[in-house]
Structure formats: structure tokens, C-alpha cells
């Protein structure tokens, strides 16, 4: 009797254990990946895309964490999370300026080992600028999610009404804006806006006219902005202010505020990134649907136009506990299929040249037909592991100049004084 009872109990225990183990195995098959993205990089579109991935990979669940609206706010948060070697994030969407910093800090898992023999073939498919931006010291630190560059958005209806052509140079832009503003007499209508607040976008507000005037941040291996080209770059913005084409509070303007102003019908010209198109055409509160045109940014008379390269990359966190699965997700998100989805859902510029010619993509974004050459010739902001500091020096000084705290000479002199240490 006693033996039988023990035996039956044993059977019970063993079967309970077996059930528990089976459940454990089922749980182990279910991987949860957490991906970090910015509030301005259309997390809603990423959700749609990731849902497709989940359908195809039933064992994977993807959570999306949405960070701050601007690039530097996101990086500030990531600095603390990753300095603490936190394992919570598996995939992180990073700005095109970050891979060098991520490589030095050891935050990104190099992807070469995962790509294996395919590595060179995979990388060869991307636009050259993105292939270069994501390879640091010969290692693939991230894969591109979408490309970006700055364009000139303009009010088709207002330009047509007053017989003004989309400007080919800055001088023509100022002249056209003055004409339209004077004729409209609308106190709420501003002529032109670009980022002027101390944020990442303001770095491009400086670099675009600097490059346009034939200058560069580093010349002959030395940081030097005490140049006529840099003077001319800042003078463009003070001329626009003097002509009342930019509003007096340009030094408060952040990237997405420009989009909101354009969308509310309060802006004639905007210098902004690719995402704006989809919002002005599709947002319920847009007052300017069908009335916006997009052209490449102007240059100076007799000079070459320039634009800042942007775009967002997918890095696998070095502290992730499911790197294999994370890499698979990244490879899906960095595929021509997803590039096309993003182009249609969010007017995010593709990282594969062939997607620009896709009929459905062109139907959603007619201006993409002229966008490829712009993205191909867009220039990079300085590459440095200390990029946050480099950026801060440029943007605070440009912001001070726009606010009238510093003269052009002071702002450029202060940049010259501080940049060499940050770029050492």
C-alpha cells in the first residue's frame, strides 16, 4: 500500500515537472524584442511595419519604445541607459551622425559576424553615403532604416498667385518672399524658416550655406570657421532677418515647429527634412493639402547648392540578450520592402536607389523623382566620437548669433576656440 502511494505520488510529480518544462520551452520560443525610436521618426509607421514582421515570425513579439522629439534629446536618454549597460533595449534607431560615437563607446554590436559571407553583397545595395556612414573602422555598426536630406518646401498656390518661380538661389528666395509677403499683408504669414533653436537641426542651418559658399568645417586638416565662407553663411540669415523674411523669433524655432507652421498655412518657404511631405498631405489638421511643392535647396548665385545628409540607422545594442533575433529584425527593417513601405506611409526617403523609381512610391511622393540626386550629393556633418560636443558648440553659437547675442565674428571665433578640443 505504502509503496503504491509513493509510486503514484512520484508519477504525479514527474508529470507536473514535465508540464512545467514544456511550458518553459514554449515561453523560450517566444522572444520579446524592444526597439527604441524617436517621436518624430513616425513610431506609428514603425508599428505597422513591425506588425507585418510579427505575423511572419509568430515566435517574436516586438515592443516599441518612443523617445524624445529631437535627436539630441533621444541621445541624452540613450547616453544614460547605455552607459549603465542596460539590457532593456535590443534595437535602437540612431541618427546618421551617431555610429562613430556608438562604435567608440562599444554600445553597438558589430554586425559583420552575423552577415557573414553576405556582408559585402548586403552593403553594396545601399546608397553609398549610407554604406559609408554605418561602417566605422571597417566594421558594420548599424544598417540604414531610411535616408534623409533637407529640401525646400514652398506654397505652390501663393507663388503662382503672385507670379513667383520656386527659387534657384537664396537671393531669389529673399526677393520672392518679400514680394509675396508684401502683397499678402498677412501678419501671421512668415517668409522662411529653418531650425534656429539650440538643437541638432541648427548645425545644418549653419553647414548648408557654409558648404554652399564653398567652405567647409575642416580645411587642410584643421578646424577653421574664421573664413569668408563662414561669414557669408551667417550673413545669409542676418540678411533674411533684415529683409523681414524670417520671423524675429527664429532662434526659438525647432524642426517640427516649422512643419506645424507650414501645415497651419503660416509659412511660405520651409527648409526641412523629407518627413514633412507626408504630414502636410495627409494630416487631418493640414490647411495646405495639395498646395505644397518640394524642390532641392537653393544655393548662392553662381555657387553649388548643398544639403545636409540625414537619415536613421538601426543598431543592435551590445547589451541585448537576444542579439540573434534582434539582427534578424534589423535585416527585415533595413530591406527594400520596408524602404518602400516607409516611402509610401511616411515619405521617408529610401536607402536603396531602385526604390526611388518604384511606381507606387512615385505616386505617393511625386517629388521623389528629383530627390535621388539630392540624397546622392548631400554632405555629412563632421564624424567624431565626441559628436555631441561638436554639435553643441556649433548650435549654441549659431543660436546666439541668430538671437543677436553674438556677432558673426564672435560666434565664429568662439567656435574656432572650442572645436579643436572637441574634435581632437
Amino acid at each position, binding site marked *: 500500500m505504502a509503496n503504491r502511494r509513493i509510486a503514484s505520488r512520484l508519477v504525479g510529480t514527474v508529470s507536473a515537472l514535465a508540464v512545467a518544462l514544456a511550458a518553459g520551452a514554449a515561453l523560450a520560443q517566444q522572444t520579446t524584442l524592444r526597439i527604441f525610436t524617436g517621436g518624430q521618426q513616425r513610431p506609428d509607421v514603425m508599428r505597422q511595419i513591425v506588425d507585418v514582421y510579427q505575423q511572419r515570425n509568430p515566435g517574436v513579439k516586438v515592443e516599441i519604445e518612443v523617445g524624445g522629439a529631437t535627436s*539630441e534629446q533621444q*541621445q*541624452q536618454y540613450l*547616453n*544614460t541607459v547605455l*552607459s549603465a549597460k542596460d539590457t532593456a533595449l535590443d534595437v535602437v534607431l540612431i541618427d546618421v551622425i551617431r555610429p562613430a*560615437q556608438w562604435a*567608440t*563607446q*562599444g554600445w553597438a554590436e558589430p554586425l559583420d559576424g552575423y552577415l557573414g559571407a553576405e556582408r559585402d553583397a548586403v552593403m553594396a545595395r545601399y546608397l553609398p553615403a549610407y554604406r559609408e556612414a554605418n561602417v566605422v573602422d571597417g566594421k558594420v555598426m548599424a544598417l540604414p532604416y531610411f535616408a534623409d536630406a533637407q529640401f525646400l518646401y514652398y506654397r505652390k498656390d501663393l507663388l503662382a498667385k503672385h507670379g513667383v518661380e520656386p527659387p534657384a538661389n537664396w537671393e531669389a528666395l529673399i526677393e520672392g518672399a518679400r514680394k509675396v509677403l508684401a502683397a499678402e499683408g498677412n501678419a501671421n504669414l512668415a517668409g522662411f524658416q529653418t531650425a534656429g*533653436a*539650440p538643437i541638432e537641426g541648427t548645425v545644418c542651418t549653419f553647414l548648408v550655406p557654409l558648404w554652399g559658399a564653398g567652405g567647409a568645417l575642416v580645411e587642410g586638416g584643421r578646424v577653421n570657421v574664421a573664413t569668408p565662407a563662414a561669414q557669408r553663411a551667417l550673413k545669409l540669415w542676418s540678411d533674411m532677418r533684415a529683409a523681414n523674411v524670417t*520671423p*524675429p*523669433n*527664429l*532662434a*526659438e524655432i525647432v524642426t517640427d515647429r516649422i512643419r506645424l507652421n507650414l501645415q497651419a498655412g503660416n509659412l511660405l518657404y520651409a527648409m526641412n527634412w523629407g518627413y514633412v511631405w507626408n504630414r502636410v498631405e495627409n494630416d487631418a489638421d493640414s490647411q495646405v493639402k495639395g498646395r505644397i511643392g518640394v524642390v532641392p535647396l537653393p544655393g548662392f548665385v553662381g555657387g553649388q547648392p548643398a544639403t545636409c545628409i540625414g537619415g536613421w540607422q538601426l543598431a543592435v545594442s551590445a547589451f541585448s540578450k537576444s542579439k540573434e533575433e534582434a539582427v534578424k529584425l534589423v535585416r527585415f527593417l533595413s530591406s527594400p520592402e520596408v524602404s518602400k513601405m516607409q516611402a509610401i506611409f511616411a515619405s521617408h526617403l529610401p536607402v536603396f536607389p531602385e526604390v526611388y523609381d518604384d511606381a507606387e512610391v512615385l505616386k505617393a511622393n511625386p517629388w521623389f523623382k528629383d530627390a535621388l540626386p539630392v540624397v546622392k550629393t548631400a554632405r555629412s556633418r563632421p564624424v567624431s*566620437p*565626441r559628436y*555631441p*560636443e561638436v554639435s*553643441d558648440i556649433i548650435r*549654441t*553659437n549659431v*543660436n*546666439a*548669433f*541668430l*538671437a*543677436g*547675442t*553674438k556677432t558673426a565674428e564672435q560666434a565664429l571665433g*568662439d567656435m574656432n*576656440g*572650442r572645436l579643436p*578640443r572637441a574634435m*581632437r
Partner: protein
Amino acid sequence: MAGRLGPLERGERLLGFAMLTPAALLLGLVVVYPVWRLLVSSFHQLDQGTRAGTAPFVGFENYAYAFADDRFWGATLNTLLFVVITVPGAVVVGLGLALLANLPFRVKWPVRLGLLLPWALPVVFAGLIFRWFFEYRQGIVNDVVVALGFEPLQWLSRPGLAFFAVCLAIVWKTSSFVALVLLAGLQTIPRELYEAAEVDGATRWQRFWRITLPLLRPAIVVALIFRTITAIQTFDIPYAMTGGGPGDSTETLAMYIHKTTIDFLDFGYGSALAVLMFALSAVATSVYLRHTRRREDAP
């Protein structure tokens, strides 16, 4: 009988030390050790350029850089200006509020609530609220300015105006704390003194100068010390309102340290700046303590 303790007293002394140990250990862990680490890292190069695990010793290089760094001096000057403007500002406004709250109202809670609310509000919220007040197009301040027939002002992107706006927000936020401290002080002043003064024919003004203010001095000193120390650490309100802008005209020392360590991950230089700010705090506090001690010693 100092120095010659009986066995019982010696035992008690030992017990006393034993009971102090946990607190001492805790303090060592959360105060002494971090401050020590801060000092150590301020003598090393510890930034984005140094690969993980390497941190060369650089002696006083970080400090030398700080003393040659215009932005450090600018931030220090801004911090001191915030102290000099907002501390007296908060004390004057706080005193007014405390006197108001001390009046014999029949219903006291609305006044008390009004006193507590700014104090209880998270500081960043206060900063964000004031940022919207001072917005160029949507802000209510410019609504008033325009209604009065003037051009709208760029409150947050003109250096002088931005500084003024931030000061206003800080005074609003901090004067309620001062008022609470002073209100407690006011309520300890015996009524009889006022009654006696009234009998002697003292005016309202004389009563305030001769009774209220002298008897309130200890409370005012406490409020001043606390307010000065927190003013040296000013961070949240300018951070939320202007982000230190335009340029770096409203950037405080605490903001520069935050930027250096959190944004630039330059822990070496950030630590040196933090040590310097600690020194500034220590100097300010000791000045106050000295001053109050002298007052107490005086007959």
C-alpha cells in the same frame, strides 16, 4: 573627571559607537564615497574619446581647462546673477505672502493653498508653464503686450528678456517656500508685543520695523541659507524654459555640468566642474554661517 571613565561608562560609550556605526556606514556609502570618486575622476581624462576601461591621469588639466573656459565663467556669472536676483526677490515676495497669510482671515485654507501650490508643483512643470506664458506667438504675456498696443517681444530668444523671464519664474516658484518658513516664524511672535506697542501708540509701520522684522530674523536667515544653496544649484527652470539659450546666456553651472557629463559623456571635465561648484556652495554657506554666528555672539 574627564578621561577617567568607569567600566559602566566605557561600556556605554562602546554601545554608543556601535549604534552610530550603521548611520556612519550609510553616510560613507552615499556621501563620502561618491564625493571621493568625483574628486578622483576630476583628475582623469574620462570622455567619449577614451575607449572603455582606459582613463589616463591628467593631474590638474581639467581644472586648468575650466579656468580658461569662457563658458565656465559665463555659467558661473549667470549662476551668481540668479542668486543675487532671485534670492532677495523670493524673500521680499515670500515675506509679503507670509504677512498676507498671517492676517486673521475667517477662511484660511484658500490662502494656505495658494501658498502651497507653487511649492508643491514639480519644478520642470513650472518651467514649462512659464515657457508657454512667454511664447512668442501663443503666450499670454505677449497677448497682453499686443493688447496694450506694443510689438510682441521675443521673451525667450533675447538675452536680457530671457534672463528676466527665467528670474520671474524662479521667484514665483521659490517664494512660497520662503513664505512657509516665514509664516512659521511669524506665528511664534507673541501677540502681546503688538498689543503693548499699540497701547504705546506705535504705528503699523513702526510695529513692522521694530517688532516683526527683528523677531523674524532667525527665520529669514534660515530661508536665505536654504534659498541660496538651492539657487546655486539652479537647473530645472532655465532648462525647461530656455535650455540655457539664447546662445548660453541663461546657462547655469549646474546645466553646464549636466551637459558636459550627460550629453558629452565627458565625466573627467564634468567632475572638475562639479568640484568647483561644490566649492562655490561651500563658500556661500560658510559666509552665511559666519555671519549668523557673529550676530548670535553680539550682545
